């Protein structure tokens, strides 16, 4: 194995310019967020939930040691009120631990960035509660409406 092919184990070489700082960042930057991306599709009834799924239909999960920091939300939806709550639940969907606030349809339709941590210390995900779902609090999401989410998190 040549030196260059061994490098390809860790780095995908495409077109562009390699900068020294970028390479250093990619190797050791603890503040570089990782992310998962998925979507939900209505209908979702009042007080009902739906798990976000990736493009392969898999549940969106974050690692047990994740520290969620930001969520990018977009879509095309017409639900009423600030009803959509992002939260992390356990495998049985019997409880939730991390609730990330609520969003309105207007905020989603214009693209929103949700700060997931207002506390002075960024909180870890509670062990076992790492499945991302959307819950409609007081209003339903109409059939066919789609909401996309990209959840950014750090690893401790």
């Amino acid at each position: 194995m040549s030196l260059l092919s061994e490098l390809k184990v860790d780095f995908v070489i495409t077109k562009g310019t390699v900068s020294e700082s970028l390479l250093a960042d990619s190797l050791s930057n603890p503040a570089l967020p990782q992310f998962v991306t998925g979507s939900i599709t209505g209908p979702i009834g009042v007080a009902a939930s739906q798990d976000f799924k990736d493009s392969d239909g898999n549940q969106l999960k974050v690692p047990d040691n994740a520290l969620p920091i930001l969520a990018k939300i977009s879509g095309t939806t017409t639900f009423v009120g600030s009803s959509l709550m992002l939260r992390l639940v356990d495998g049985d969907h019997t409880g939730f631990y991390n609730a990330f606030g609520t969003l309105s349809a207007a905020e989603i339709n214009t693209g929103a960035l949700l700060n997931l941590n207002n506390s002075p210390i960024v909180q870890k995900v509670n062990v076992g509660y790492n499945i991302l779902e959307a819950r409609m609090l007081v209003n339903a999401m109409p059939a066919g409406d789609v909401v996309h989410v990209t959840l950014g998190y750090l690893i401790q």
Partner: protein
Amino acid sequence: MSLLSESIATFVQSKSITSGSVVAPYINNPFVPKYLTGTVTGLIAADEFKVLTDANSNQLVLPTNAVLLYCKIRGTTTFAGTLQVACTDAGQTTTSNGLVEVEAADVNQGCYAAFNGNLIPKLAAGFNIAAVLMIDDPLPVGEVIQVSLAYLEI
């Protein structure tokens, strides 16, 4: 030193590969901030603002879909009261998208200022030229404030 780490060290030091990029943690990652850095120089009158400019005296212009995350502010200054990092429109008639206010002591030791709250606001339409707004008190003549603005594009 392992073969791999030696390879990486060589890769870093030589900078000889000009048609490659390190992509794994970065590609399509919407949470890697971009940034712009510029300065303002006093005098800025009380309740007035001045546009930040880069080393080539160009205005700092953010993309219209930018979401301001935070800014790093530093300088050597003696102003009273507070300053605010904000944005203005092309006509430079008013500011919008203000970040939290900081005092001279914060600036002199170097500080970060960020939006607070659950929902981080997008730039108001048309207001994407970065500026420094003096709240109630002026920035004295000759004093320089440097600001690095970190933002995401969504």
